[in-house]
């Protein structure tokens, strides 16, 4: 699905990423760990093609196509969707219009907005006065409409209150098509399914959607099954392995020890 080869990236003349190699196969979800300021957001933004980042070396392939220098919207059309951390406010453009631009039908928008507890936000300008958690839910609502084949999420849990974390996780899981049902109550028991307005619990039929998710806290892993994790450290991928294993090692020993001490070999 996504193949990154020897990618180096700079911003404002400073190298941020160096010799990144990453391969995400269809249906795979990868997570990206790493301390603040190490280049995780830069990697996601570069995959999407945002202008402030300059690729100095390497290639990015998506679905076999070289997208290294492709315009952002062509990448979106090809199936890449992104949730950035701080999306700008667009005054006068309502969230409803925004979601419709992303590709949803109007009925779907209503229903999904309800599930995301954003139905009262649909007529407000996109991101205007949204709290951190509201921004995440609004981004996910847009991505549900966009239905990307590769989902890039930059810290989906940050700023989200405890009550909504499950919702955010399940929404991400829904977009990745892992048997999630978009019903009003973000619980996981059987009752929830009864309330679900969908005859077909998941309108997104079988696909091979993939994801790359930046997370610090790892909460999202409870909702989204990830196959591979990477640690981005000082601008390069310093370690890769099983998500749970890497995460518990990082939690216990910290990034530096984990990276230099051989993260995968550590056992609790």
């Amino acid at each position, binding site marked *: 699905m996504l193949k990154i080869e020897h990618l180096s990236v700079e911003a404002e003349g400073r190298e941020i990423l160096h010799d990144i190699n990453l391969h995400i196969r269809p249906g795979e979800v990868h997570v990206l760990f790493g301390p603040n300021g190490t280049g995780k957001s830069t990697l996601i933004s570069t995959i999407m093609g945002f202008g402030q980042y300059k690729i100095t070396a390497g290639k990015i392939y998506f679905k076999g196509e070289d997208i290294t220098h492709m315009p952002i919207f062509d990448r979106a*059309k090809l199936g890449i969707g992104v949730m950035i951390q701080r999306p700008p406010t667009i005054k*006068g453009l309502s969230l409803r219009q925004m979601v419709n631009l992303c590709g949803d039908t109007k009925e779907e928008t209503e229903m999904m907005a309800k599930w995301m507890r954003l139905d009262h936000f649909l007529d407000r300008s996109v991101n205007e006065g949204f709290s951190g958690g509201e921004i995440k839910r609004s981004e996910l609502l847009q991505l549900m409409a966009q239905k990307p084949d590769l989902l890039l999420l930059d810290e989906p849990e940050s700023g989200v209150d405890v009550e909504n974390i499950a919702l955010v996780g399940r929404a991400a899981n829904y977009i990745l098509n892992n048997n999630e049902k978009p019903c009003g109550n973000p619980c996981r028991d059987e009752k929830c399914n009864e309330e679900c307005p969908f005859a077909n619990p998941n309108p997104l039929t079988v696909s091979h959607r993939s994801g790359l998710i930046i997370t610090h806290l790892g909460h999202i892993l409870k909702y989204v099954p990830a196959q591979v994790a990477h640690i981005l450290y000082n601008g390069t991928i310093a370690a890769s392995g099983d998500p749970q294993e890497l995460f518990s090692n990082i939690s216990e020993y910290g990034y530096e020890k984990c990276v230099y001490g051989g993260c995968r070999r550590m056992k609790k």
Partner: protein
Amino acid sequence: MSTDMEKEKITEALNKAAVYGNNIDLNTFDDNNDVHAKSVESMSNPDKKTMEKVGMELNDAEDRSGTFLQVDNAPVEIKTKKDTPMVLMNTGDAAKKYPELVEKYWWKAVKADTDKYTAKTALEKENGYFVHLQKGVKIAAPVQSCMFMSHENQLQRVHNIIILEEGAELNLITGCASDPSLDKGVHVGVSELYIGKNAKLTFTMIHSWGHNVAVRPRTVAIVDEGGLYMSNYVNMDKVADVQMYPTVHLIGKGATTRLNSILVAPEGAHMDIGGKAILEVPGTKAEIITRSISTGGTIINRGYLEGKSEGVKAHLECNGLMLSKKGHILAIPELDAHTGNSDLSHEAAVGKVNQEEIEYLMARGLSEDEATATIVRGFLNINIEGLPKSLEEKINKTLDTFTYTKGM
């Protein structure tokens, strides 16, 4: 109407240049009171289309409480919907019929000797609409008016008066336009708006003038206790020279005003447009919001808030987008507080479309041009509260006529 002494003063003002804008020589224009159109039906299709563009419902005016059409300096149609408790007539006729109102309202909000334009209007035969609503009369369906210029090199003079007695409510949409084939002319429009205690006036004005027409509106509103004056102004066409600085005096406790303006200046347009609110007593509130776009033309956007009393609150916002390498936007917001306890604020930003916003939309699958157009359309979208649906649609329709194309 005026004493001899006053008349002398006004005559002197015929040579008085306005504070802002080019000093137009009114003598070079054709000032006549001729009837150039007998009826709406007799007008050409392009003319009708233009009138519709600025908000007039010509065929099915069912959802309009009244219609007033003036072509050049002659009223062509004055109609009030059956059983509507409203006086709608020509100002000149109203002056004859209601001398006691003349005493109280004529040239009281706008001083006749303000400048040469007001003086000219005061001294010549009087035309324009006069609307009077008695205490408690609320009229939901809008009254529509149109000031139309059809004659080449015409000087059009208009004197409008709206009086809303206590608790009355009115929606008025006024479209000002000229025959699409007309090149040169000058329009002078004096409007005196009196909003009584707890009364509410929504005044929506859409302009679409010929390329070389000069426009000098002179509007002053006086809002009494608990009253509300909402003004929405849209001008998105090339107009050689428009200068206006509508002023609102909030004279009663709790009086409120909101002035919204949407301006688009194509190459060759020169718009000098302001908004002024004078908060005279405690508890008054004002909000002035302007969105201006230059696609090559000049916009001077003035804003002035004067807090004369304690406990007033007002906000001024003039934001401009430059969509062309040519063009010029000058934002001049002014705050003037006379007491320590007034809350006046302003926000002004002029620039190009934010690249981050463009990329955000591109990441959702929009091309660069589509993304830019979407942002620009949003920018123009002032959320206007309390506007009747039909007017909101009208404004949105007008806004939709503006399509951004790259390289304008």
